[in-house]
């Protein structure tokens, strides 16, 4: 470090120092030492950062490792929905006092979280008891048209769900798709995957559903879901999936629940509607 002019320094230092300038071999040695002193922590910082970045990236890759499976995981979805009336996009009593409309994309991971963590309890406590009807307003907006190969996973999953709705088995397919959801836009919704889903639904004619999923028969409910979303949220940019619209049957006034909120948010809102 250079001393300012006028600073009193010991003779040993002054011998190589004049007004902040160091001269001679000792001064050169000192400059090299200072430079070394600065480089050492810089190298340590860079080295440490590289190690940390590597660790984070590896951890991220491991935590997002594709959940693709060769066999469809059915868990207890069929059991959960067994005996619950279904008609098209509707699940539950047609005359239920309260209606909950779910806006979601079949590739959306938060929608899958909600399907696993909240949906089963709502079915058990409110749908089975006839108090609540849930409607599926499925959207397809996570498909990526910018990637090479053009992924159409959302479209394919949504089409199959709506095709199953023609046989009143939409909810079984939707829940199975969430249960077996793969990594977005990786093309995981292959023909085999869709066939596996369809064949795992009791009472669904899989071949018929897959055939219908490639026809205009599914366009109507998909357009209706888009219209529903627009009517409630104006545009796709203003809705986060999953989003929900809750209302009493026969009334227009509704309550919106945005995001995969915890169970209590839904039970509180539904209970409030039931008390009205």
């Amino acid at each position: 470090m250079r001393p300012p002019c006028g600073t009193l320094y010991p003779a040993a230092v002054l011998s190589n120092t004049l007004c902040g300038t160091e001269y001679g071999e000792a001064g050169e040695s000192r400059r090299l030492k200072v430079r070394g002193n600065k480089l050492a922590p810089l190298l340590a910082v860079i080295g440490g950062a590289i190690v940390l970045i590597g660790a984070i990236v590896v951890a991220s890759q491991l935590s997002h490792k594709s959940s693709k499976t060769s066999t469809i995981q059915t868990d207890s979805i069929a059991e959960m929905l067994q005996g619950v009336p279904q008609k098209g996009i509707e699940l539950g009593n047609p005359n239920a006092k309260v209606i909950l409309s779910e806006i979601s994309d079949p590739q959306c991971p938060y929608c899958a979280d909600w399907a696993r963590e909240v949906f089963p309890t709502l079915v058990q406590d409110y749908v089975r008891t006839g108090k609540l009807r849930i409607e599926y307003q499925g959207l397809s907006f996570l498909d990526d048209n910018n990637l090479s190969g053009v992924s159409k996973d959302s479209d394919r999953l949504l089409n199959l769900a709506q095709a199953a709705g023609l046989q009143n088995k939409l909810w079984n397919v939707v829940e199975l798709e969430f249960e077996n959801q793969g990594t977005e836009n990786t093309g995981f919704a292959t023909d085999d995957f869709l066939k596996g889903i369809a064949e795992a639904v009791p009472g669904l004619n899989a071949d018929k559903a897959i055939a219908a999923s490639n026809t205009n028969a599914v366009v109507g409910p998909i357009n209706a879901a888009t219209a529903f979303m627009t009517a409630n949220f104006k545009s796709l940019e203003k809705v986060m999936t999953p989003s929900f619209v809750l209302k009493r049957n026969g009334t227009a006034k509704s309550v919106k629940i945005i995001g995969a909120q915890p169970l209590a948010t839904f039970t509180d809102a539904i209970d409030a509607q039931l008390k009205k």
Partner: protein
Amino acid sequence: MSERYLRWAVATLALIGAGIAGYLTYTHFRGFPPVCFTSGCEIVQNSRWSKLFGIPVALLGLLTYLSIVATTLVRHPLAKQAGAMIALVALGFNAYLLYIQEHEIGHYCTWCVSNEIVSLVLAPVAIAWLLSTDEREGTGAS
């Protein structure tokens, strides 16, 4: 540039980054999409890449930037080293997130890209800060 100005620059950039990350964290927990010129923000925020081991990446970013701000408040060579290292890690992780947006999600979140630009500027400034000399410390990095 003097150590003092570099310290301020690091703190200011980190606060800008914290502001962006804080806004994304807020929208995440409030459950509404961030204000965005495209639908990319919502798609990226909805993607599985928006969380790391169940923790929202936006929250991690907020904590990271606040940590950098904290290092600028402590006048010690180790604080500089910690600040510079965190800034470099933030830059590396943001580069990774940019790669994910391009190759895995296929959409860009303008807020995320803004944060990536902040980290791109912040890292070299933090390195310059590390190498600068604080008169109170003696040598800047020891």
